[in-house]
């Protein structure tokens, strides 16, 4: 099949064009954020950190950053243990109801996010959780759980449970045998799940649009509101930072997975 027929060249060019289309937005954002110009032109007339300074010196953006980081960290801290416990139960139990539990835990991926967002908005409006940190964190825990469950269930599938049985038969209690024998061996899938939950919470926009407000607005909500009015280059700086954080985290998750594989 190694002929350089015109067909193959056209095919390769087509694929290259599609790939360019896929990464173009990511390629464009970073240079934009370092531009000195008020209006977005490409290539930038000269380089500057103007928009990063604008971002850092703006108390509203800083407050939003704090909210985003707090929500994402709290989400990871809650969703990871809950997800690991559920994944352990799902892969251990043979009860039929566990398949329903497994399915229910993946619901957040299936239900259109706009419906989830409006539903949560109605419930929060009734119980007074609109524009609160607690409300934001719990919504994100729910949205992040599937990532932890999927990742850890997959990790446990390739783990030989008899090792834990051996530890227990040698006198360790169940909890200790889980923490000393099982957890270290599935740690890469736990970390991957936690990282995905973090990124999901950091990037989540639609639920935040409906339920966040006042001083507890995450970055994405403020960005969305700002974008409705005008294209502010400060958003390019924030976008670049967010993307850099995501990529770094994904890199960590994938290199760890390779080490353990």
């Amino acid at each position, binding site marked *: *099949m190694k002929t350089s027929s015109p067909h193959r060249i056209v095919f*390769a060019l*087509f*694929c290259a064009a*599609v*790939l360019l*289309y896929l*990464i*173009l*937005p990511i390629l*464009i*954002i970073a240079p934009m954020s370092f531009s000195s110009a008020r209006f*977005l032109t*490409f290539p930038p007339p000269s380089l500057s950190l103007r928009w990063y300074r604008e971002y850092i010196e703006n108390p509203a953006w800083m407050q939003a950053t704090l909210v985003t980081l707090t929500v994402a960290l709290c989400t990871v801290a809650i969703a990871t243990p*809950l997800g690991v*416990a*559920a994944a*352990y139960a*799902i892969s251990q*139990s043979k*009860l039929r109801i*566990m398949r329903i539990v497994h399915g*229910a*835990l*993946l*619901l*957040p991926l*299936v239900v*259109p*996010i*706009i*419906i*989830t967002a*409006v*539903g*949560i*908005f*109605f419930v929060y409006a009734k119980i007074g959780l609109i524009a609160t940190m607690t409300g934001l964190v*719990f*919504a994100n825990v*729910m949205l992040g*759980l599937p990532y932890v469950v*999927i990742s850890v269930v997959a990790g446990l599938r390739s783990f030989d449970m008899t090792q834990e049985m051996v530890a227990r038969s040698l006198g360790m209690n169940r909890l200790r045998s889980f923490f000393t024998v099982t957890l270290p061996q599935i740690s890469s899938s736990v970390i991957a799940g936690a990282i995905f939950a973090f990124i999901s919470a*950091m*990037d989540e*926009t*639609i639920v935040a*649009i*409906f339920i966040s407000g006042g001083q507890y607005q995450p970055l*994405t909500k403020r*960005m*969305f509101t700002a*974008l*409705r009015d005008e*294209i502010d280059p400060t*958003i390019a700086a924030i*976008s670049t930072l967010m*993307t850099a954080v*995501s990529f770094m985290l*994904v890199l960590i998750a994938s290199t760890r997975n390779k080490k353990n594989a």
Partner: protein
Amino acid sequence: MPTADPSLRHYRREQGLMLALSLPALLVVLLLIVVPVGWLGWQSIYHDGFTFENYRRIFSEDIYWKTFLFTFEISLLVTGLALLLGYPLAYAAHAASKGWSIVILALVVLPFWTSVLVRAYAWLVLLQRTGVINQLLQSLGIISEPLALVHNMFGTVVATVHILLPFMVLPLYAAMQKIPADLMQAGASLGASPSHAFRRIFLPLSLPGVLAGSTLVFVLCLGFYITPELLGGGRAIMVSMLVSRNVELYNQWGAASAVGVVLLLSVGIIFFVVSRFIRLDRVLGVQ
């Protein structure tokens, strides 16, 4: 209920423990998705007594059913375009050498980890009147006046396809990887030309991937909100925007709920029909 059989007792305790372990996570999902969606359903039919007014309105008032129709049309268009762009790319990743295959897949997955909002912003920058694309086309002398590439259908579709393309490519690639390579060789040894072998052997065997990817893209597109809102300029009103406007602008919670229920039912029906042909847990990447 004490039982004489110790192994049965052990089994019960074991299963009880497993249920208890899964309970906190289950509770979070119940309280934050099952209850809210149930509430949505209740609110759509109950307002000081039972009423089907909200549903009647969806089918009788133009703005409602036209928006549904438009959303289905745009989802079909997006799915078709994603398939058109995604199939060759998935095939390239499948047929290329290992190194190239990794490069292609990495570039497909990369945008996955960029926020949808960030990508919508990037397209806004690229496509606006003074944006990169218009500048490029003007400096090349292809156009004299900037084209209206955004705040319309075009911009919405470009950004939406961009965001959904990975959901098409990955299931396609997975399905193609399952096709045994010797089948194509067998076809060739029996005298089939490469294009004939592709059409008669490879294409039919990749159809589960086509169905999986298309379902995923179509269903996700039905509920899309950020790209039509930011890039549609009010010209591409989708169902999700109808929901949000009824909540935020008109305070019509009942109407918003009914629209949400119809959207959810559409998604449910599509998943149900498709699940009769392929395993949906695989589509969602669970296994």
